[in-house]
């Protein structure tokens, strides 16, 4: 018997579906693309159990005739291409005719559609790739696609779906891309009957960016605009002080389609070169319009990668338009505000440091706070005396960042930030373990506006943050309210902290491991609370830091794994100086 068999149509379609349909977000991407191609001005997405149970996309587009509805689930059936040449000048989002059959082969799907002006609509269902009979059905104008039980017949794939939050984050990201590309279209999404977001029809891209990302960021948008022969680029970029640890906030659209093109992203990064710290990425919203004959979008089924005829020209154009826009706004007053916040957060850290140190000093020397003016602690001479119960080793702070300390065998060079960070880390951990953490209620909850994706990510940490004394609540769809904070970190910039947290957890699938998340959160708290490099410390503060190091094991590496102390032995020095 021959070993090679022709696969059945059902198996083939399941395999094909795997390329296009990875998770609920990809179903939504395909369906919303169809709605947009159908000229819809209003698209509604309803989800149940993050799309695992139900994805419903309904639009008010042109709808489909009865015959078309019947054909829709056939492979490579599309209304968007007719001849092979058309494929090289594509103006619609979809064209391959793969989406609906692929979805149909891995779910229980139903389409109801009524063309504009027609009296009735038609309904057809498909289950695991097997078509049911078409029926007449009353429905509103436009098309509604219901996808039930995605991957019900491919259990392995279903098993690999992530938690609700992760899938919702992917879905939000997908919709955000469409919403940015088509500001005039009204989008709204519901999950388990609750509204997740509503993006009303906006008059331009800027208005849409404001709706999605909030006013605060959008105040600083710098518009970019250029046109050269068949290529036009417009959109917005943000000044370098607004940046991200990854490229997720780099939205590039080609003829209304979200793309990721390494050459364009390279041009973006090149334009920001020397303006950003390493490993930080700028935020851009770029809309490219290139004649469809000059670009090949048929590279990959998801169409996220494209090929340009003139990749070099586009690269240079993107670079020059962003570069000149940034140059133009270099001395913009908006930058002033940001330096002010930087200063204030620096000051706040300094303040908490000095509080911290002064109190530790009191503890070490047996002084108590609330001393009055006659107390000898306020005597200036007293302040220069070392704490009575500690042995003094000579030390020196260099470049306001490193502490050089003499040891019995030679000398240590200490990274002040890293050392303080690990000490704080252990201290906070201990307090959590001993369940002694004082939390301070806030007078007015601190409101922080986030993107929908970040919002979901933070709310996922609610319970962990709660354990650390940072109570957060949902406050509207995109805003969180911080109600309490751990007393141990009183002069913290909450916005900074939340941003740091998001960066730390981003791209990490640590679901279900509370302790991992908890330790990440503690890491951030420690990092934000520690003295910074470049901060001048007085000798008392250095002494306290060194004493803490002595009394505490496990301080040789900071929570991020970098060393805190470099040891130099006197014997090595002597060797170097050719004394031995």
């Amino acid at each position: 018997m021959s070993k090679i068999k022709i696969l059945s149509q059902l198996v083939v379609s399941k395999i094909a579906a795997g390329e296009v349909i990875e998770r609920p977000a990809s179903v939504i991407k395909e369906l919303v693309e169809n709605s947009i191609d159908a000229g819809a001005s209003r698209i509604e997405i309803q989800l149940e159990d993050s799309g695992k149970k139900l994805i419903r996309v309904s639009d008010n587009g042109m709808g489909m005739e009865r015959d078309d509805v019947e054909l829709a689930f056939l492979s490579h059936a599309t209304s968007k291409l007719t001849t092979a040449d058309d494929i090289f000048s594509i103006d619609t989002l979809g064209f391959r005719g793969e989406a609906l059959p692929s979805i149909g082969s891995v779910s229980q799907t139903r389409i109801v559609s009524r063309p504009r002006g027609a009296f009735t609509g038609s309904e057809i269902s498909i289950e695991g790739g097997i078509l049911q009979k078409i029926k007449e059905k009353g429905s509103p104008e436009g098309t509604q696609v219901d996808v039930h039980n995605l991957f019900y017949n491919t259990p392995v794939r279903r098993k690999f779906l992530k938690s609700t939050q992760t899938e919702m984050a992917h879905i939000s990201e997908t919709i955000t891309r469409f919403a940015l590309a088509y500001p005039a279209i009204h989008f709204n999404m519901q999950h388990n009957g609750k509204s997740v977001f509503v993006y009303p029809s906006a008059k331009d891209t800027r208005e849409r960016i404001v709706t999605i990302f909030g006013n605060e960021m959008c105040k600083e948008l710098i518009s970019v605009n250029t046109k050269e022969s068949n290529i036009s680029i417009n959109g917005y970029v943000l000044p370098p002080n607004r940046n991200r640890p990854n490229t997720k906030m780099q939205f590039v659209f080609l003829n209304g389609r979200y793309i990721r093109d390494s050459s364009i992203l390279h041009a973006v990064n090149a334009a920001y070169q020397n303006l950003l710290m390493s490993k930080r990425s700028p935020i851009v919203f770029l809309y490219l319009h290139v004649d469809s004959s000059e670009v090949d979008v048929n590279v990959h089924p998801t169409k996220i990668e494209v090929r340009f005829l003139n990749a070099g020209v586009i690269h240079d154009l993107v670079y020059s338009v962003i570069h000149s826009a940034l140059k133009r706004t270099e001395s913009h007053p908006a930058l002033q505000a940001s330096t002010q916040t930087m200063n204030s957060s620096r000051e706040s850290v300094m303040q908490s440091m000095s509080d911290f140190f002064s109190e530790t000093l009191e503890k070490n020397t047996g002084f108590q706070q609330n001393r009055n003016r006659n107390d000898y602690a306020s005597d200036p001479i007293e302040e220069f005396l070392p704490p009575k119960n500690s042995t003094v080793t000579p030390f020196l702070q260099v470049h306001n960042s490193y502490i050089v300390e003499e040891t019995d065998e030679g000398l240590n060079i200490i990274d002040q930030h890293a050392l303080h960070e690990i000490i704080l880390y252990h201290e906070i951990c201990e307090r959590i373990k001993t369940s002694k953490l004082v939390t301070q209620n806030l007078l007015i909850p601190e409101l922080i506006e986030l993107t929908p994706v970040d919002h979901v990510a933070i709310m996922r940490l609610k319970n962990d943050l709660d354990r650390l004394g940072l109570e957060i609540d949902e406050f509207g769809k995109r805003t969180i309210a911080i109600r309490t904070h751990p007393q141990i970190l009183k002069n913290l910039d909450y916005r900074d902290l939340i941003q740091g947290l998001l960066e730390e957890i981003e791209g990490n699938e640590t679901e279900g491991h509370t302790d991992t998340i908890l330790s990440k959160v503690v890491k951030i708290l420690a990092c934000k609370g520690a003295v910074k490099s470049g901060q001048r410390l007085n000798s008392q503060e250095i002494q306290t830091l060194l004493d803490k190091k002595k009394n505490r094991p496990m301080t040789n590496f900071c929570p991020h794994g970098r060393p805190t102390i470099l040891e130099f032995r006197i014997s090595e020095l002597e060797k170097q100086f050719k004394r031995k």
Partner: protein
Amino acid sequence: MKVTCDSNILKKGFHLVETVISSSNLKPILQNVKISAYDNSLELSTTDLEVSITYRMDCTEVLEPGTIICSENKIASIIKEWDNNTIEIIENEKVCEISCKDDYFKILCADPEEFPVIPDFTDENYVEIENRVFASMIRKTMFIALGDRTKTASSGIFFDISNDQAKMVANDGRRLAEIKKKINNPRGLTISCIIPTKGVSQILKILSDQEEVIRIKVDEKRILVKTKSSTFCSQLIDGRYPDYEKIIPSDMNKAVTLNRSEFSTAVRKGAIMTIEDYKLLCFKFFNNILELTCSTPDVGESKVTMAIEYRDEELEIGFNPDYILDFMRVVDTDHVLFELRDNKTAGIFKVGDDYQYMIMPLKLREMKN
């Protein structure tokens, strides 16, 4: 310019204006003082662009009017060396010559054009307040804003005048103080602004001990305060002050009148066993007794009791003792009223009808591992 002036008076002037000199070297021109002589007075001005101070001295003999800009540090150091002497200052071709008795100094001056313009107090649309009232309002609110540098809108003091009432409010996210005073406001002006803490503490310095009426004027960007001898100007904080009145709880059902000094002592004793990152003092009110307890890991415990008049329902609530002591330091009456509801609601101290101080409670998080 050519003037002669008494060294003691000059010393006092420099002592005041040097508080504004910025310590950073970013703008060297701001390290200078502007000295202007006209009619029979001498004016010293300094600014760090955020705040500016002008101090006027009358007992001067102006032989030749003029303006010079020179290093504040140098000229102040020179003047500090002489007591009860007459000092002569002569400016000639951007060189300032200072002589007194047998000593002689020459300071190179900067171009007056380079010095920032110091805002002037133009006499219109101002409000008059007694300096003591104003100073007391500042003292009773400023102590909160001093520690907090995290938030922009709250890191200043909210100053509001409407009809015949002046109001100051400060908060740091955890506590809030509000003081109201009746004033004369014949022009019916309304003022609503946020003054940065730095500016507020400078205002205190120019307010003299003598009884006097000062003038205050606020425009969109700044506040100007004029006393007999000085004019002070500070930039305002841009932004809207939080709608704080909404968060002051009104349905308090427990109240206790406390003797200020007894209560302060008790809290101070109770707080002995706290440390900076563990500042939790538990207040238990019951049966005419206030019991303060504290138990700090790795440090120790305390229990302090005080007799009070309290017959309401028993209540146990945690506060940061520092926040209470901060307030007790600025209270000048013998008794304060402390209103409470439950251990999640803020406690409010009230002094008379016009001063209240609200603090948010603390709680001990019990970890369940």
